[in-house]
Protein backbone atom coordinates (compact mmCIF):
# COMPACT_ATOMS: atom_id res chain seq x y z
CA UNK A 1 0.00 0.00 0.00
CA UNK A 2 1.46 3.33 -0.95
CA UNK A 3 0.54 6.88 -0.14
CA UNK A 4 1.79 10.30 -1.04
CA UNK A 5 1.39 13.17 1.40
CA UNK A 6 0.25 16.32 -0.35
CA UNK A 7 0.62 20.03 0.29
CA UNK A 8 -2.92 19.86 1.66
CA UNK A 9 -1.80 17.33 4.26
CA UNK A 10 1.10 19.57 5.28
CA UNK A 11 -1.20 22.56 5.58
CA UNK A 12 -3.72 20.60 7.63
CA UNK A 13 -0.97 19.48 9.99
CA UNK A 14 0.29 23.04 10.43
CA UNK A 15 -3.19 24.35 11.17
CA UNK A 16 -4.08 21.65 13.69
CA UNK A 17 -0.67 21.84 15.33
CA UNK A 18 -1.03 25.58 15.89
CA UNK A 19 -4.45 25.08 17.45
CA UNK A 20 -3.18 22.20 19.60
CA UNK A 21 -0.05 24.02 20.73
CA UNK A 22 -1.87 27.21 21.64
CA UNK A 23 -5.18 25.99 22.99
CA UNK A 24 -4.97 22.30 23.90
CA UNK A 25 -1.46 21.71 25.27
CA UNK A 26 -1.83 24.37 28.00
CA UNK A 27 -4.93 22.51 29.31
CA UNK A 28 -3.47 18.98 29.29
CA UNK A 29 -2.00 18.86 32.81
CA UNK A 30 -5.18 20.22 34.37
CA UNK A 31 -7.40 17.82 32.43
CA UNK A 32 -5.25 14.93 33.68
CA UNK A 33 -5.16 16.16 37.28
CA UNK A 34 -8.88 16.85 37.61
CA UNK A 35 -10.05 13.97 35.35
CA UNK A 36 -12.70 16.34 34.04
CA UNK A 37 -13.89 16.15 30.47
CA UNK A 38 -12.72 19.30 28.62
CA UNK A 39 -16.05 20.65 27.38
CA UNK A 40 -14.36 23.88 26.33
CA UNK A 41 -12.05 22.00 23.99
CA UNK A 42 -14.93 19.94 22.62
CA UNK A 43 -16.63 23.24 21.71
CA UNK A 44 -13.39 24.50 20.16
CA UNK A 45 -12.97 21.34 18.06
CA UNK A 46 -16.60 21.58 16.94
CA UNK A 47 -16.16 25.23 15.97
CA UNK A 48 -13.07 24.40 13.92
CA UNK A 49 -15.04 21.63 12.09
CA UNK A 50 -12.72 18.97 13.50
CA UNK A 51 -15.51 16.77 14.88
CA UNK A 52 -16.92 16.24 11.41
CA UNK A 53 -13.81 15.02 9.63
CA UNK A 54 -15.16 11.52 8.91
CA UNK A 55 -18.63 12.56 7.75
CA UNK A 56 -19.73 13.16 4.15
CA UNK A 57 -19.97 16.78 3.02
CA UNK A 58 -23.65 16.30 2.15
CA UNK A 59 -24.32 15.84 5.87
CA UNK A 60 -22.22 18.82 6.92
CA UNK A 61 -18.95 16.97 7.44
CA UNK A 62 -15.59 17.75 5.94
CA UNK A 63 -15.11 14.28 4.46
CA UNK A 64 -11.34 14.10 4.92
CA UNK A 65 -9.37 11.18 3.53
CA UNK A 66 -8.03 8.77 6.13
CA UNK A 67 -4.47 10.11 6.04
CA UNK A 68 -5.85 13.57 6.84
CA UNK A 69 -7.98 12.15 9.64
CA UNK A 70 -4.89 10.43 11.04
CA UNK A 71 -2.97 13.71 10.91
CA UNK A 72 -5.73 15.51 12.84
CA UNK A 73 -5.80 12.84 15.58
CA UNK A 74 -2.00 12.70 15.68
CA UNK A 75 -1.53 16.44 16.08
CA UNK A 76 -4.14 16.72 18.81
CA UNK A 77 -2.73 13.68 20.65
CA UNK A 78 0.73 15.25 20.46
CA UNK A 79 -0.65 17.91 22.81
CA UNK A 80 -3.17 15.84 24.78
CA UNK A 81 -4.34 12.25 24.34
CA UNK A 82 -7.64 12.84 26.16
CA UNK A 83 -8.60 15.62 23.75
CA UNK A 84 -7.72 13.51 20.71
CA UNK A 85 -10.38 11.05 21.86
CA UNK A 86 -13.04 13.70 21.27
CA UNK A 87 -12.35 13.49 17.55
CA UNK A 88 -11.50 9.81 17.48
CA UNK A 89 -14.50 8.45 19.40
CA UNK A 90 -16.89 10.61 17.35
CA UNK A 91 -15.80 8.46 14.43
CA UNK A 92 -15.70 5.19 16.35
CA UNK A 93 -19.27 5.65 17.56
CA UNK A 94 -20.50 6.58 14.09
CA UNK A 95 -18.54 3.97 12.11
CA UNK A 96 -21.23 1.26 12.42
CA UNK A 97 -23.60 3.70 10.68
CA UNK A 98 -20.89 4.77 8.22
CA UNK A 99 -20.15 1.18 7.18
CA UNK A 100 -23.62 -0.41 7.44
CA UNK A 101 -26.26 2.22 8.20
CA UNK A 102 -29.05 3.21 5.85
CA UNK A 103 -29.13 6.57 4.09
CA UNK A 104 -32.13 7.43 6.26
CA UNK A 105 -30.15 6.71 9.46
CA UNK A 106 -27.22 8.73 8.17
CA UNK A 107 -29.36 11.70 7.28
CA UNK A 108 -31.03 11.53 10.70
CA UNK A 109 -27.82 11.50 12.75
CA UNK A 110 -24.77 12.63 10.76
CA UNK A 111 -25.60 16.35 10.58
CA UNK A 112 -25.75 16.61 14.37
CA UNK A 113 -22.59 14.53 14.78
CA UNK A 114 -20.66 16.35 12.06
CA UNK A 115 -21.38 19.73 13.65
CA UNK A 116 -20.34 18.44 17.07
CA UNK A 117 -23.76 19.27 18.51
CA UNK A 118 -24.07 15.58 19.39
CA UNK A 119 -21.40 13.17 20.57
CA UNK A 120 -21.26 9.49 19.70
CA UNK A 121 -19.91 6.45 21.55
CA UNK A 122 -19.37 2.80 20.67
CA UNK A 123 -20.85 0.14 22.97
CA UNK A 124 -19.52 -3.34 22.33
CA UNK A 125 -17.48 -4.34 25.40
CA UNK A 126 -19.03 -5.92 28.47
CA UNK A 127 -17.53 -6.89 31.80
CA UNK A 128 -17.00 -10.45 30.62
CA UNK A 129 -16.74 -9.90 26.87
CA UNK A 130 -14.06 -7.76 25.29
CA UNK A 131 -12.50 -9.06 22.12
CA UNK A 132 -14.53 -12.28 22.57
CA UNK A 133 -17.63 -10.84 20.97
CA UNK A 134 -19.54 -14.14 21.09
CA UNK A 135 -19.57 -13.80 24.88
CA UNK A 136 -21.84 -10.77 24.83
CA UNK A 137 -24.79 -11.15 27.18
CA UNK A 138 -26.78 -8.03 26.45
CA UNK A 139 -30.19 -8.94 25.02
CA UNK A 140 -32.41 -7.27 22.47
CA UNK A 141 -35.95 -8.64 22.31
CA UNK A 142 -38.29 -7.71 19.50
CA UNK A 143 -41.46 -5.98 20.71
CA UNK A 144 -43.68 -4.79 17.87
CA UNK A 145 -41.92 -2.06 15.90
CA UNK A 146 -39.12 -1.84 18.46
CA UNK A 147 -36.54 -3.82 20.41
CA UNK A 148 -36.17 -3.83 24.17
CA UNK A 149 -32.52 -3.75 25.22
CA UNK A 150 -31.49 -5.17 28.57
CA UNK A 151 -28.05 -5.61 30.10
CA UNK A 152 -24.82 -3.76 30.78
CA UNK A 153 -21.80 -2.45 28.91
CA UNK A 154 -18.43 -1.61 30.43
CA UNK A 155 -15.39 0.47 29.44
CA UNK A 156 -17.43 2.63 27.05
CA UNK A 157 -15.40 5.71 26.20
CA UNK A 158 -17.63 8.81 26.39
CA UNK A 159 -20.57 6.52 27.21
CA UNK A 160 -21.76 8.87 29.94
CA UNK A 161 -21.61 12.05 27.84
CA UNK A 162 -22.61 10.81 24.38
CA UNK A 163 -26.01 11.60 22.89
CA UNK A 164 -25.90 8.48 20.75
CA UNK A 165 -24.33 5.07 21.41
CA UNK A 166 -24.05 2.29 18.86
CA UNK A 167 -24.87 -0.81 20.88
CA UNK A 168 -24.34 -4.49 20.19
CA UNK A 169 -26.81 -6.93 21.70
CA UNK A 170 -27.89 -10.53 21.18
CA UNK A 171 -31.14 -10.97 19.28
CA UNK A 172 -30.56 -14.74 19.21
CA UNK A 173 -28.24 -15.83 22.03
CA UNK A 174 -28.28 -19.48 20.91
CA UNK A 175 -26.70 -18.50 17.59
CA UNK A 176 -23.50 -17.16 19.16
CA UNK A 177 -21.84 -14.42 17.15
CA UNK A 178 -24.43 -14.91 14.39
CA UNK A 179 -27.07 -13.87 16.91
CA UNK A 180 -25.52 -10.45 17.47
CA UNK A 181 -27.21 -7.28 16.19
CA UNK A 182 -26.31 -3.59 16.21
CA UNK A 183 -28.51 -0.67 17.26
CA UNK A 184 -28.44 3.10 17.45
CA UNK A 185 -29.49 4.15 20.95
CA UNK A 186 -30.25 7.74 21.85
CA UNK A 187 -29.08 8.15 25.42
CA UNK A 188 -32.10 10.15 26.57
CA UNK A 189 -34.26 7.05 26.04
CA UNK A 190 -35.93 5.90 29.30
CA UNK A 191 -34.13 2.95 30.90
CA UNK A 192 -30.67 4.07 29.81
CA UNK A 193 -28.23 5.08 32.53
CA UNK A 194 -24.49 5.51 33.03
CA UNK A 195 -24.12 4.82 36.74
CA UNK A 196 -20.36 4.58 37.04
CA UNK A 197 -17.17 6.11 35.64
CA UNK A 198 -13.86 4.24 35.84
CA UNK A 199 -10.84 5.68 37.67
CA UNK A 200 -8.02 5.33 35.21
CA UNK A 201 -4.26 5.42 34.87
CA UNK A 202 -4.28 7.60 31.74
CA UNK A 203 -6.59 9.46 29.34
CA UNK A 204 -8.11 10.60 32.60
CA UNK A 205 -10.23 13.44 31.27
CA UNK A 206 -12.08 11.06 28.98
CA UNK A 207 -14.98 9.44 30.85
CA UNK A 208 -15.00 5.64 30.52
CA UNK A 209 -18.47 4.58 31.57
CA UNK A 210 -20.47 1.59 32.62
CA UNK A 211 -23.84 1.64 30.89
CA UNK A 212 -27.06 0.03 32.10
CA UNK A 213 -29.99 -0.80 29.87
CA UNK A 214 -33.28 -1.57 31.56
CA UNK A 215 -35.80 -2.35 28.81
CA UNK A 216 -34.52 0.50 26.66
CA UNK A 217 -36.92 0.82 23.73
CA UNK A 218 -35.15 1.16 20.39
CA UNK A 219 -37.20 1.49 17.19
CA UNK A 220 -36.61 -1.10 14.48
CA UNK A 221 -35.62 1.84 12.28
CA UNK A 222 -32.52 2.15 14.50
CA UNK A 223 -31.22 -1.35 13.87
CA UNK A 224 -27.99 -1.24 11.89
CA UNK A 225 -28.09 -3.88 9.16
CA UNK A 226 -30.19 -7.00 9.57
CA UNK A 227 -30.60 -9.10 12.69
CA UNK A 228 -27.45 -11.18 13.04
CA UNK A 229 -25.23 -8.65 11.22
CA UNK A 230 -23.82 -7.30 14.49
CA UNK A 231 -20.57 -9.24 14.45
CA UNK A 232 -19.75 -8.19 10.89
CA UNK A 233 -20.64 -4.57 11.68
CA UNK A 234 -18.44 -4.60 14.80
CA UNK A 235 -15.47 -6.08 12.94
CA UNK A 236 -15.83 -3.72 9.97
CA UNK A 237 -15.90 -0.86 12.49
CA UNK A 238 -12.87 -1.96 14.50
CA UNK A 239 -10.83 -2.84 11.39
CA UNK A 240 -11.15 0.84 10.43
CA UNK A 241 -11.21 2.57 13.81
CA UNK A 242 -7.91 1.00 14.95
CA UNK A 243 -6.26 3.36 12.51
CA UNK A 244 -7.22 6.26 14.79
CA UNK A 245 -5.55 4.54 17.74
CA UNK A 246 -2.37 4.13 15.73
CA UNK A 247 -2.50 7.84 14.90
CA UNK A 248 -3.15 8.71 18.53
CA UNK A 249 -0.14 6.60 19.58
CA UNK A 250 2.10 8.31 17.02
CA UNK A 251 0.96 11.68 18.32
CA UNK A 252 1.62 10.78 21.95
CA UNK A 253 5.11 9.55 21.01
CA UNK A 254 5.88 12.71 19.04
CA UNK A 255 4.78 14.90 21.94
CA UNK A 256 7.17 13.03 24.24
CA UNK A 257 10.06 13.32 21.76
CA UNK A 258 9.53 17.03 21.27
CA UNK A 259 9.50 17.66 24.99
CA UNK A 260 12.52 15.42 25.63
CA UNK A 261 14.60 17.18 22.98
CA UNK A 262 13.75 20.59 24.40
CA UNK A 263 14.67 19.42 27.87
CA UNK A 264 17.92 17.74 26.80
CA UNK A 265 19.00 20.92 25.02
CA UNK A 266 18.77 23.00 28.19
CA UNK A 267 19.67 20.52 30.94
CA UNK A 268 23.37 20.64 31.84
CA UNK A 269 25.27 18.01 33.77
CA UNK A 270 29.04 17.59 34.12
CA UNK A 271 29.48 20.93 32.38
CA UNK A 272 27.68 20.09 29.14
CA UNK A 273 24.17 19.83 27.75
CA UNK A 274 22.86 16.31 28.10
CA UNK A 275 21.71 16.65 24.46
CA UNK A 276 25.42 16.52 23.54
CA UNK A 277 25.97 13.26 25.38
CA UNK A 278 25.99 10.13 23.27
CA UNK A 279 23.89 8.16 25.76
CA UNK A 280 21.06 10.68 25.39
CA UNK A 281 21.55 11.13 21.64
CA UNK A 282 21.17 7.40 21.01
CA UNK A 283 17.91 7.38 22.96
CA UNK A 284 16.54 10.40 21.09
CA UNK A 285 17.54 8.88 17.75
CA UNK A 286 15.81 5.58 18.55
CA UNK A 287 12.71 7.42 19.77
CA UNK A 288 12.48 9.54 16.63
CA UNK A 289 13.23 6.85 14.05
CA UNK A 290 10.82 4.39 15.69
CA UNK A 291 8.06 6.99 15.76
CA UNK A 292 8.67 7.90 12.12
CA UNK A 293 8.39 4.22 11.15
CA UNK A 294 5.11 3.93 13.09
CA UNK A 295 3.84 7.11 11.42
CA UNK A 296 4.60 5.88 7.92
CA UNK A 297 2.95 2.52 8.63
CA UNK A 298 -0.09 4.37 9.97
CA UNK A 299 -0.38 6.42 6.78
CA UNK A 300 0.02 3.27 4.69
CA UNK A 301 -2.84 1.74 6.70
CA UNK A 302 -4.86 4.92 6.12
CA UNK A 303 -4.30 4.53 2.38
CA UNK A 304 -5.49 0.91 2.65
CA UNK A 305 -8.70 2.08 4.36
CA UNK A 306 -9.18 4.82 1.75
CA UNK A 307 -8.84 2.17 -0.96
CA UNK A 308 -11.18 -0.16 0.98
CA UNK A 309 -8.51 -2.82 0.47
CA UNK A 310 -9.69 -6.39 1.17
CA UNK A 311 -6.79 -6.85 3.60
CA UNK A 312 -7.18 -3.48 5.34
CA UNK A 313 -7.36 -5.24 8.73
CA UNK A 314 -3.78 -6.44 8.19
CA UNK A 315 -2.67 -2.84 7.77
CA UNK A 316 -4.67 -1.22 10.55
CA UNK A 317 -3.78 -3.95 13.06
CA UNK A 318 -0.11 -3.75 12.10
CA UNK A 319 -0.15 0.03 12.45
CA UNK A 320 -1.89 -0.11 15.83
CA UNK A 321 0.48 -2.83 17.08
CA UNK A 322 3.63 -1.01 16.02
CA UNK A 323 2.45 2.48 16.97
CA UNK A 324 1.11 1.45 20.37
CA UNK A 325 4.31 -0.34 21.32
CA UNK A 326 6.35 2.56 19.97
CA UNK A 327 4.37 5.09 22.01
CA UNK A 328 4.90 3.04 25.17
CA UNK A 329 8.65 2.68 24.56
CA UNK A 330 9.17 6.28 23.47
CA UNK A 331 7.27 7.81 26.37
CA UNK A 332 9.13 5.55 28.81
CA UNK A 333 12.40 6.72 27.29
CA UNK A 334 11.27 10.35 27.47
CA UNK A 335 10.83 9.92 31.22
CA UNK A 336 14.34 8.44 31.26
CA UNK A 337 15.79 11.43 29.41
CA UNK A 338 14.30 13.74 32.01
CA UNK A 339 15.55 11.56 34.87
CA UNK A 340 13.86 12.34 38.18
CA UNK A 341 12.08 15.31 36.61
CA UNK A 342 10.40 12.93 34.19
CA UNK A 343 8.77 11.10 37.08
CA UNK A 344 7.06 14.11 38.61
CA UNK A 345 3.85 15.77 37.48
CA UNK A 346 5.59 19.11 37.02
CA UNK A 347 6.64 17.82 33.58
CA UNK A 348 4.29 16.29 31.00
CA UNK A 349 6.17 13.12 30.06
CA UNK A 350 4.90 10.97 32.94
CA UNK A 351 1.36 11.81 31.83
CA UNK A 352 2.26 10.88 28.27
CA UNK A 353 3.66 7.56 29.52
CA UNK A 354 0.43 6.81 31.37
CA UNK A 355 -1.63 7.88 28.36
CA UNK A 356 0.45 5.74 26.00
CA UNK A 357 -0.42 2.53 27.85
CA UNK A 358 -4.03 2.59 26.75
CA UNK A 359 -3.01 2.39 23.08
CA UNK A 360 -1.70 -1.12 23.79
CA UNK A 361 -5.02 -2.11 25.31
CA UNK A 362 -8.13 -0.65 23.72
CA UNK A 363 -9.73 -1.54 20.41
CA UNK A 364 -8.10 -4.94 20.84
CA UNK A 365 -4.99 -5.62 22.91
CA UNK A 366 -1.65 -5.95 21.15
CA UNK A 367 -2.05 -9.70 21.43
CA UNK A 368 -5.39 -9.57 19.61
CA UNK A 369 -3.75 -7.44 16.89
CA UNK A 370 -1.22 -10.21 16.39
CA UNK A 371 -4.02 -12.76 16.01
CA UNK A 372 -5.65 -10.59 13.35
CA UNK A 373 -2.37 -10.06 11.51
CA UNK A 374 -1.56 -13.78 11.61
CA UNK A 375 -5.03 -14.69 10.36
CA UNK A 376 -4.50 -12.33 7.41
CA UNK A 377 -1.11 -13.90 6.74
CA UNK A 378 -2.57 -17.39 6.65
CA UNK A 379 -5.37 -16.20 4.39
CA UNK A 380 -2.87 -14.64 1.98
CA UNK A 381 -0.93 -17.88 1.91
CA UNK A 382 -4.12 -19.82 1.24
CA UNK A 383 -3.73 -21.85 4.42
CA UNK A 384 -6.55 -20.48 6.59
CA UNK A 385 -7.91 -22.78 9.26
CA UNK A 386 -10.97 -24.62 7.89
CA UNK A 387 -14.28 -23.37 9.34
CA UNK A 388 -15.48 -25.46 12.28
Amino acid at each position, binding site marked *: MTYRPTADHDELRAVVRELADERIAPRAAEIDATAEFPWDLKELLAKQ*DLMGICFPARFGGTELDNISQAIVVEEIARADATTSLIVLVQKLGALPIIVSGTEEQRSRYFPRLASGEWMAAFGLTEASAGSDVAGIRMRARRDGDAYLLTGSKRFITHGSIANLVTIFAMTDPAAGRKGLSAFIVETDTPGFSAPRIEHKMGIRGSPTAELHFDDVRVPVANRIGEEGDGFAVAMATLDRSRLSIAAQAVGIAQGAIDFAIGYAAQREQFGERIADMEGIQFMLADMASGTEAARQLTYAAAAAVDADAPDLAYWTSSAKLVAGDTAMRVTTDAVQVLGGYGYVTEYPVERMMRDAKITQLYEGTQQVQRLIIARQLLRRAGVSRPAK
Partner: protein
Amino acid sequence: MVCLKQVPATTSEKRYTADLRLDRAASEAVINPLDEYAIEQALRLQESGAVESVGYLSMGPDQAAEALRRALAMGGDDATLVTDPGLGGADAWATARVLAAALDRIAPDIALMGMASDDARGSLVPGAVAALRGVPLLSYGSELRVDGSVARVRRLTADGFDIVEAPMPVVASVTDQVGEPRYASLKGIMAAKRKPMETWSLGDLGLSPDDLHGAALTRVVEVRKPEAKPPTERVENVSADEAVTRIADWLAARKLA
Protein backbone atom coordinates in the same frame (compact mmCIF):
# COMPACT_ATOMS: atom_id res chain seq x y z
CA MET B 1 -8.97 45.74 2.17
CA VAL B 2 -6.53 44.26 4.67
CA CYS B 3 -2.89 44.74 3.75
CA LEU B 4 -0.80 41.93 5.14
CA LYS B 5 2.81 40.86 5.09
CA GLN B 6 4.33 37.43 5.20
CA VAL B 7 7.18 37.36 7.72
CA PRO B 8 9.54 34.72 9.10
CA ALA B 9 8.17 33.08 12.26
CA THR B 10 9.83 34.67 15.28
CA THR B 11 10.88 31.24 16.47
CA SER B 12 12.59 30.25 13.22
CA GLU B 13 16.29 30.69 12.58
CA LYS B 14 17.07 33.55 10.21
CA ARG B 15 19.71 33.53 7.51
CA TYR B 16 20.86 36.37 5.32
CA THR B 17 22.03 36.39 1.74
CA ALA B 18 25.37 37.90 0.71
CA ASP B 19 23.68 41.26 -0.03
CA LEU B 20 22.22 41.27 3.51
CA ARG B 21 18.70 40.33 2.55
CA LEU B 22 16.72 37.90 4.62
CA ASP B 23 16.80 34.45 3.06
CA ARG B 24 13.04 33.92 3.09
CA ALA B 25 13.25 30.38 1.76
CA ALA B 26 15.31 29.38 4.81
CA SER B 27 12.74 30.34 7.45
CA GLU B 28 9.23 29.21 8.20
CA ALA B 29 6.89 31.93 6.98
CA VAL B 30 3.72 33.12 8.67
CA ILE B 31 1.24 35.99 8.42
CA ASN B 32 2.72 38.89 10.36
CA PRO B 33 1.08 38.25 13.76
CA LEU B 34 0.17 41.94 14.12
CA ASP B 35 -1.63 41.79 10.76
CA GLU B 36 -3.78 38.95 12.09
CA TYR B 37 -5.44 41.51 14.36
CA ALA B 38 -6.28 43.60 11.31
CA ILE B 39 -7.79 40.50 9.68
CA GLU B 40 -9.82 39.78 12.80
CA GLN B 41 -11.06 43.38 12.94
CA ALA B 42 -12.05 43.32 9.29
CA LEU B 43 -13.91 40.01 9.62
CA ARG B 44 -15.79 41.29 12.67
CA LEU B 45 -16.85 44.34 10.69
CA GLN B 46 -18.04 42.10 7.88
CA GLU B 47 -19.93 39.80 10.26
CA SER B 48 -21.69 42.76 11.84
CA GLY B 49 -22.71 43.98 8.40
CA ALA B 50 -20.67 47.19 8.70
CA VAL B 51 -18.65 46.35 5.60
CA GLU B 52 -19.79 44.44 2.56
CA SER B 53 -16.68 42.51 1.67
CA VAL B 54 -13.17 41.84 2.92
CA GLY B 55 -10.21 41.42 0.61
CA TYR B 56 -6.51 40.97 1.21
CA LEU B 57 -3.54 42.64 -0.41
CA SER B 58 0.08 41.64 -0.01
CA MET B 59 3.36 42.50 -1.64
CA GLY B 60 6.01 39.83 -1.54
CA PRO B 61 7.59 36.86 -3.26
CA ASP B 62 5.46 34.12 -4.85
CA GLN B 63 5.31 32.24 -1.57
CA ALA B 64 3.43 35.15 0.03
CA ALA B 65 0.40 33.63 -1.70
CA GLU B 66 0.44 31.09 1.15
CA ALA B 67 -0.12 33.86 3.67
CA LEU B 68 -3.00 35.21 1.59
CA ARG B 69 -4.51 31.74 1.34
CA ARG B 70 -4.23 31.38 5.11
CA ALA B 71 -5.98 34.71 5.58
CA LEU B 72 -8.74 33.60 3.19
CA ALA B 73 -9.15 30.47 5.35
CA MET B 74 -9.95 32.75 8.29
CA GLY B 75 -12.64 34.46 6.20
CA GLY B 76 -13.05 37.18 3.61
CA ASP B 77 -13.66 37.12 -0.10
CA ASP B 78 -10.63 37.55 -2.32
CA ALA B 79 -6.93 38.35 -2.38
CA THR B 80 -4.37 40.13 -4.50
CA LEU B 81 -0.64 39.50 -4.49
CA VAL B 82 1.74 42.04 -5.96
CA THR B 83 4.90 40.22 -6.87
CA ASP B 84 7.72 41.21 -9.20
CA PRO B 85 11.41 40.41 -9.52
CA GLY B 86 12.02 44.17 -9.28
CA LEU B 87 10.69 44.23 -5.73
CA GLY B 88 13.44 42.19 -4.06
CA GLY B 89 14.83 44.09 -1.08
CA ALA B 90 11.97 46.58 -1.04
CA ASP B 91 12.09 48.94 1.94
CA ALA B 92 9.18 50.62 3.73
CA TRP B 93 9.01 53.43 1.20
CA ALA B 94 8.94 51.13 -1.83
CA THR B 95 6.38 48.90 -0.11
CA ALA B 96 4.16 51.89 0.60
CA ARG B 97 4.51 53.10 -2.98
CA VAL B 98 3.45 49.72 -4.37
CA LEU B 99 0.61 49.22 -1.90
CA ALA B 100 -0.65 52.76 -2.60
CA ALA B 101 -0.66 52.06 -6.33
CA ALA B 102 -2.52 48.79 -5.81
CA LEU B 103 -5.02 50.47 -3.47
CA ASP B 104 -5.58 53.23 -6.02
CA ARG B 105 -6.64 50.52 -8.40
CA ILE B 106 -8.80 48.58 -5.91
CA ALA B 107 -10.24 51.75 -4.32
CA PRO B 108 -11.46 50.24 -1.03
CA ASP B 109 -13.30 52.29 1.60
CA ILE B 110 -10.78 51.20 4.19
CA ALA B 111 -7.21 49.97 3.78
CA LEU B 112 -6.56 48.24 7.08
CA MET B 113 -3.13 47.24 8.39
CA GLY B 114 -1.48 45.86 11.49
CA MET B 115 0.35 48.43 13.62
CA ALA B 116 3.77 47.09 12.61
CA SER B 117 5.43 44.11 11.00
CA ASP B 118 7.02 41.57 13.24
CA ASP B 119 10.27 41.46 11.27
CA ALA B 120 11.16 45.09 10.57
CA ARG B 121 8.98 46.88 13.12
CA GLY B 122 9.26 50.18 11.29
CA SER B 123 5.54 51.05 11.61
CA LEU B 124 6.06 53.36 8.64
CA VAL B 125 3.91 51.79 5.96
CA PRO B 126 0.38 52.80 7.11
CA GLY B 127 1.34 56.47 7.34
CA ALA B 128 3.28 56.40 4.11
CA VAL B 129 0.43 54.76 2.19
CA ALA B 130 -2.04 57.33 3.52
CA ALA B 131 0.30 60.17 2.55
CA LEU B 132 0.93 58.79 -0.92
CA ARG B 133 -2.78 58.30 -1.53
CA GLY B 134 -3.74 61.61 0.05
CA VAL B 135 -6.32 60.04 2.38
CA PRO B 136 -6.73 60.32 6.16
CA LEU B 137 -4.80 58.00 8.49
CA LEU B 138 -6.52 56.47 11.51
CA SER B 139 -3.62 54.81 13.28
CA TYR B 140 -3.15 52.51 16.26
CA GLY B 141 -6.83 51.73 16.77
CA SER B 142 -7.79 49.41 19.59
CA GLU B 143 -11.09 49.18 17.73
CA LEU B 144 -12.31 50.24 14.31
CA ARG B 145 -15.92 51.06 13.56
CA VAL B 146 -17.80 52.19 10.51
CA ASP B 147 -20.68 54.62 10.84
CA GLY B 148 -22.25 55.51 7.51
CA SER B 149 -19.52 57.12 5.45
CA VAL B 150 -17.25 57.66 8.44
CA ALA B 151 -14.57 55.35 9.84
CA ARG B 152 -13.66 55.73 13.48
CA VAL B 153 -10.92 54.32 15.66
CA ARG B 154 -10.56 54.25 19.39
CA ARG B 155 -6.91 54.81 20.27
CA LEU B 156 -5.58 54.13 23.75
CA THR B 157 -3.40 56.88 25.17
CA ALA B 158 -1.37 57.25 28.35
CA ASP B 159 -4.29 58.86 30.18
CA GLY B 160 -7.38 57.49 28.48
CA PHE B 161 -8.31 57.17 24.86
CA ASP B 162 -8.88 59.26 21.77
CA ILE B 163 -11.70 58.76 19.32
CA VAL B 164 -10.45 59.64 15.84
CA GLU B 165 -12.73 59.65 12.83
CA ALA B 166 -12.51 60.54 9.20
CA PRO B 167 -14.66 60.26 6.08
CA MET B 168 -13.82 57.20 3.99
CA PRO B 169 -11.72 56.28 2.12
CA VAL B 170 -9.12 56.00 4.85
CA VAL B 171 -6.02 54.07 5.79
CA ALA B 172 -6.29 52.57 9.27
CA SER B 173 -4.01 50.53 11.47
CA VAL B 174 -5.03 48.51 14.51
CA THR B 175 -3.25 47.12 17.56
CA ASP B 176 -3.46 43.78 19.35
CA GLN B 177 -6.32 45.23 21.43
CA VAL B 178 -8.98 44.48 18.80
CA GLY B 179 -9.51 40.90 19.98
CA GLU B 180 -7.81 37.55 19.54
CA PRO B 181 -7.52 36.49 15.90
CA ARG B 182 -9.64 33.47 15.08
CA TYR B 183 -8.25 30.13 13.95
CA ALA B 184 -9.07 29.02 10.46
CA SER B 185 -11.72 26.31 10.56
CA LEU B 186 -11.42 23.21 8.42
CA LYS B 187 -14.27 24.33 6.21
CA GLY B 188 -12.62 27.74 6.00
CA ILE B 189 -9.41 26.14 4.76
CA MET B 190 -11.29 24.14 2.16
CA ALA B 191 -13.33 27.15 1.03
CA ALA B 192 -10.17 29.27 0.75
CA LYS B 193 -8.88 27.09 -2.06
CA ARG B 194 -11.80 28.21 -4.22
CA LYS B 195 -11.65 31.92 -3.41
CA PRO B 196 -10.25 34.17 -6.14
CA MET B 197 -6.64 35.30 -5.91
CA GLU B 198 -5.07 37.65 -8.43
CA THR B 199 -1.41 38.24 -9.03
CA TRP B 200 -0.22 41.63 -10.23
CA SER B 201 3.22 42.69 -11.44
CA LEU B 202 4.71 46.16 -11.18
CA GLY B 203 3.73 46.66 -14.82
CA ASP B 204 0.10 45.93 -13.98
CA LEU B 205 0.25 48.85 -11.55
CA GLY B 206 1.88 51.14 -14.08
CA LEU B 207 5.11 51.19 -12.08
CA SER B 208 8.65 50.41 -13.18
CA PRO B 209 11.68 49.45 -11.07
CA ASP B 210 13.03 52.93 -11.87
CA ASP B 211 10.02 54.49 -10.12
CA LEU B 212 11.10 52.60 -7.04
CA HIS B 213 14.79 53.54 -7.21
CA GLY B 214 15.81 49.90 -7.17
CA ALA B 215 13.07 49.13 -4.66
CA ALA B 216 14.71 50.97 -1.77
CA LEU B 217 15.75 54.43 -0.67
CA THR B 218 17.51 52.89 2.30
CA ARG B 219 20.48 50.56 2.28
CA VAL B 220 21.26 47.79 4.75
CA VAL B 221 24.90 48.22 5.74
CA GLU B 222 25.20 45.60 8.43
CA VAL B 223 23.22 42.75 10.00
CA ARG B 224 24.21 41.50 13.40
CA LYS B 225 22.78 39.69 16.35
CA PRO B 226 21.87 41.69 19.43
CA GLU B 227 24.58 41.80 22.09
CA ALA B 228 24.34 38.71 24.22
CA LYS B 229 23.02 39.46 27.68
CA PRO B 230 25.29 38.38 30.55
CA PRO B 231 24.15 35.05 31.92
CA THR B 232 21.53 35.13 34.65
CA GLU B 233 23.13 34.93 38.07
CA ARG B 234 21.36 32.51 40.32
CA VAL B 235 21.51 32.32 44.08
CA GLU B 236 20.73 28.72 44.89
CA ASN B 237 21.37 26.09 47.53
CA VAL B 238 22.41 28.57 50.24
CA SER B 239 20.81 29.61 53.49
CA ALA B 240 18.22 32.38 53.46
CA ASP B 241 20.58 34.77 55.27
CA GLU B 242 23.36 34.10 52.80
CA ALA B 243 20.95 34.55 49.87
CA VAL B 244 19.70 37.91 51.22
CA THR B 245 23.25 39.17 51.69
CA ARG B 246 24.30 38.17 48.20
CA ILE B 247 21.24 39.67 46.52
CA ALA B 248 21.64 42.91 48.53
CA ASP B 249 25.32 43.11 47.57
CA TRP B 250 24.43 42.50 43.92
CA LEU B 251 21.87 45.32 43.95
CA ALA B 252 24.22 47.66 45.84
CA ALA B 253 27.03 47.04 43.34
CA ARG B 254 24.70 48.31 40.61
CA LYS B 255 23.49 51.22 42.69
CA LEU B 256 19.96 49.74 42.64
CA ALA B 257 19.61 49.64 46.41
